[in-house]
């Protein structure tokens, strides 16, 4: 079957479009190089053929995939700054009372002594911080101890949640994720058990964006765009020649 010039131009168009989309993904990774617990994302290119005729149609950016590798831990001065070393997510309550999941553990106490994240969403845990708390300690298993009247006592526990397929979680912005059909249902357990990671207080997990890798990807993507653009121009030249045949 003979391809038309429009078909050929369209193939190069898909090449340029998917590279542009991939560039957006890379830009987002680079922009979040300092966002705590941010996970870099890669775009997955896929070959595109017409469904029935199996004519070649170029490429598409079929989906994105988060890289769940652990980020480095960095020391921090607040006991409410928590990092997860290993797998799992903190759960927070959104204003509409649904749950969202995050690895960004930069929590703080609000005026009502709730543990809240940077956006003010409450951390889900079974306990409360009493009044007149002098100091707080959170151990690796998530047990929260407070000092009141110079005496330490346990006031509750922060648990972690994981999913069969954490890659299936849907990112909703603000470093938060919500469960989906693809992720499976949330399974909540004590930290440092059931394959879940440890909770490290006085720490933050840095983003796992690999700067060198992302810049290399950016160069490859830019070259891919250029190549597709060049092909587009060459095809256009051929089309011009065909049109100029009859002088």
């Amino acid at each position, binding site marked *: 079957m003979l391809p038309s*010039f429009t078909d050929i131009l369209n193939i*190069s168009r898909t090449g340029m479009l998917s590279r542009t989309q991939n560039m957006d993904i890379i830009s987002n990774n680079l922009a979040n190089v300092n966002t705590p617990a941010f996970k870099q994302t890669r775009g997955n290119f896929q070959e595109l*053929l017409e469904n029935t005729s*199996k004519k070649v*149609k170029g490429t598409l950016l079929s989906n994105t*995939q988060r890289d769940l590798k652990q980020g480095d831990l960095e020391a921090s001065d607040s006991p409410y700054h928590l990092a997860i070393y290993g797998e799992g997510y903190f759960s927070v309550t959104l204003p509409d009372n649904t749950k969202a999941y995050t690895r960004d553990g930069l929590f703080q106490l609000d005026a009502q002594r709730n543990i809240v994240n940077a956006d003010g969403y409450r951390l889900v845990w079974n306990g409360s911080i009493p009044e007149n708390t002098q100091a707080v300690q959170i151990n690796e298993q998530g047990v929260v101890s407070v000092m009141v009247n110079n005496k330490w006592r346990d006031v509750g526990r922060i648990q972690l949640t994981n999913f*069969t397929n954490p890659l299936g979680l849907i990112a909703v912005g603000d470093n938060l994720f919500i469960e989906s059909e*693809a992720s499976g249902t949330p399974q909540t357990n004590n930290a440092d058990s059931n394959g879940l990671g440890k909770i490290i207080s006085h720490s933050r997990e840095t983003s796992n964006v690999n700067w060198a890798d992302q810049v290399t990807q950016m160069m490859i993507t830019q*070259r891919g765009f250029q190549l597709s653009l060049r092909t587009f121009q060459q095809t256009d030249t051929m089309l011009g020649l065909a049109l100029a045949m009859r002088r």
Partner: protein
Amino acid sequence: MIKGLYATASAMVAGMKRQNALAHNIANLETPGFRQILLAMDDWYVTPVTHATNEIQPGVGVNHYYKPGYLGLGTQTSPEIIDFSQGDVKVTNEELDFAINGSGFFRLQTPDGVRYSRDGRFRRDANNTLVNVDGFKVLDVNGNAITLPQGHVRVNEQGRIFNQAGNQVAQINLAVFEDPQNQLERDGLNTFKASAEPTGTDGGSIQQGSLEMANANVQQLMTQMVIVNRAYEAAQKVVQMQDDIVGKLINNLNRL
């Protein structure tokens, strides 16, 4: 009527087909496991060149036609060839990225039946099933879907999947075709449809945490594109020349 005109026009048509394949290869330079399309050029039919004479040849009689040789009637692209050569392997350190070093194919269960692919971008779905990037189930040596254990997995060169305790839970199947060129057909989403059962052995080794990239090569593609474009331009010029000659014939001959 005018053999040369048809011949050069056939070169222009072939040029478009080649450009189409090149554009597809270039668009998929970053598609892991992509196998590039190759288009070779074939001579087309030939026709005997004859012209009438009325010479009398001894022992033969009147030789009406003198045949100096044959004339090609143009060119065409030979049927699409898939280049199954090995692509470069890129280390990604993703647990469920796999590259094949060798001639084997992963077996995938798609809604349309079993398909074969060199694309090793796998993941786990909500039921712990090993699926590829488009959600097709990856099949084991017995032709069943693979259920991954919880936690991290290790996959050795034979495709054996081990859980964290070090016990084998499944083995990824590598299909090997005796004649992939004739037995496999491009079917979209980086998969191939087979017209015969994979009967070969030794599909090569599987490398966990890596991806095999497309086997297209930028330098080669760009060179080919320049050649295609120049050939197209040349053919176009020759068409114009043929047209000029015919024009002169029509316009000038009657003035004699």
